[in-house]
């Protein structure tokens, strides 16, 4: 990133626009920081990244919402890159869907999509999206990670990232895991005197806290910390 001439950071806390279209000109960097603690409406973000440009995105979503979040990153130029991190909690009757897609149009582009979530209560949490490599986008590297821990019997988690590959000379991978909260882990913590609510909080913290490192603002980090704890403290 240091070799790029212009680095821009955009931060939205709660007031995330319903539609956002951004261009990252050649050889520049954009960092998009999103954090939500209040209900959100359907949101669609489109990012075009020019040659040698860098897009970094991070989203801490602790909102109580019924919505779809769509992110499309178009890696239009060669040597362009996208690095995306999401941490989301869905609780109670939340229904949250994240379609995070990256389209590799040119050669030697890099696309990383990483989504982590926790589904509690009777919520539904879906991680979807496409990582597509167009023909001619040689030596491209793309990776999608989607991981969900389902905390409660009535909660539903789905992780289904898709890879579409139209070129041979590429590296592409994806990981999708949905797992129930481990009873063995809970028992271990509880056997040390820690009650169930606190044990869940500790496990959640360990799972979602790494997202904080992506934010530069200390105040925002603290707010995310509180939200992670608050997200499981009601039960």
């Amino acid at each position, binding site marked *: 990133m240091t070799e790029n001439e212009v680095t821009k950071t955009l931060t939205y806390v709660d007031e995330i626009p319903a539609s956002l279209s951004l261009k990252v000109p050649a050889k520049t960097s954009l960092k998009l920081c999103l954090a939500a603690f209040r209900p959100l409406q359907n949101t669609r973000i489109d990012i075009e990244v020019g040659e040698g440009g860098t897009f970094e995105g991070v989203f801490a979503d602790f909102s109580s919402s019924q919505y779809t979040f769509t992110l499309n990153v178009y890696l239009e130029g060669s040597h362009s890159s996208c690095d995306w991190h999401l941490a989301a909690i869905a609780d109670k009757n939340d229904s949250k869907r994240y379609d995070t897609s990256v389209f590799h149009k040119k050669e030697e582009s890099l696309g990383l999509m990483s989504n982590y979530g926790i589904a509690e209560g009777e919520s539904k949490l879906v991680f979807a999206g496409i990582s597509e490599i167009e023909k001619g986008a040689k030596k491209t590297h793309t990776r999608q990670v989607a991981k*969900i821990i389902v905390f409660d019997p009535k909660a539903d988690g789905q992780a289904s990232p898709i890879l579409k590959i139209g070129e041979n000379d590429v590296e592409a991978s994806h*990981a999708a895991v949905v*797992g129930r909260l*481990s009873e063995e*882990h809970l028992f271990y*913590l509880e*056997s*040390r005197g820690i009650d169930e609510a606190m044990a869940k909080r500790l496990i959640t913290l360990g*799972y979602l806290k790494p997202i904080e490192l992506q934010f530069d603002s200390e105040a925002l980090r603290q707010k995310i910390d509180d939200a992670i704890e608050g997200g499981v403290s009601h039960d």
Partner: protein
Amino acid sequence: MSKLSIKNLHVAVKGKEILHGVDLDVSEGETLALLGPNGHGKSTLLAAIMGNPAYQVTAGTIMLDDQNVLALSPDKRSRAGLFLAMQYPSEIPGLNSADFLKAAMNAHADKPLSLFQFYNSLQKAYEAMGIPFEMSKRNLNEGFSGGEKKRNEMLQMKLLQPKIALLDEIDSGLDVDAMGIVAKAIGDEEARGAGFLVVSHYARLYNMIKPTRAAILINGRIAVSGGIDLIEKVDTQGYEWIKTELGIPVEKENDNAMNSVSIGACATRVAVNNDGK
């Protein structure tokens, strides 16, 4: 002086009964060596005492003095004074050891510990267990060697000071030096007045911690209980004499029971750790 008292305990795992009526007592100040072949229910007994939800108590009672242990959740059992050092301690991804220990110690304290009190006891315990203090910054048991996990269990015991501690093969995976450290930790707690129920296959640990009594668990029941001469007898002769002297046939090892327990743990470990490789 507190007493853990188990009567006619029946325990099933996934609908299959493993313990068929166990009677056993352990009091503060005494150390009971629990012996028995693999698969006969030693770990099951310890897990059931601590309240592992994978083990269903179908009959019998467990009392700690006048408290009905079976009515308590595992965290309340811990706060009542029970402690289980596990044979296979869980690795908890992302959970910092010091944060975990603080939560556990605060759960046992009347009011939250001051930062000074906490770090003071933490440092002493790490030093006593021969664990570098740096390890307190690592995630709980994540990437720890077998021996480090066992010492970490003993570290937790030291910090939580239970009335009755249950140790499930605490000596497996330990080298001679580490075994000395673990034995000393047990000795210190014995001197404080804690009671122990210790499961081990090896006379070496028992020689170091000097049990006061021994019992042998066969086919899901206590077949023999008595003095510590039983330990040497098992160490030199195995369990064949149980059949010839007592007429109790020793059932073949059956380890199906343990398999069903670890599935959940693996699944989440995959979910959290493994990047799909």
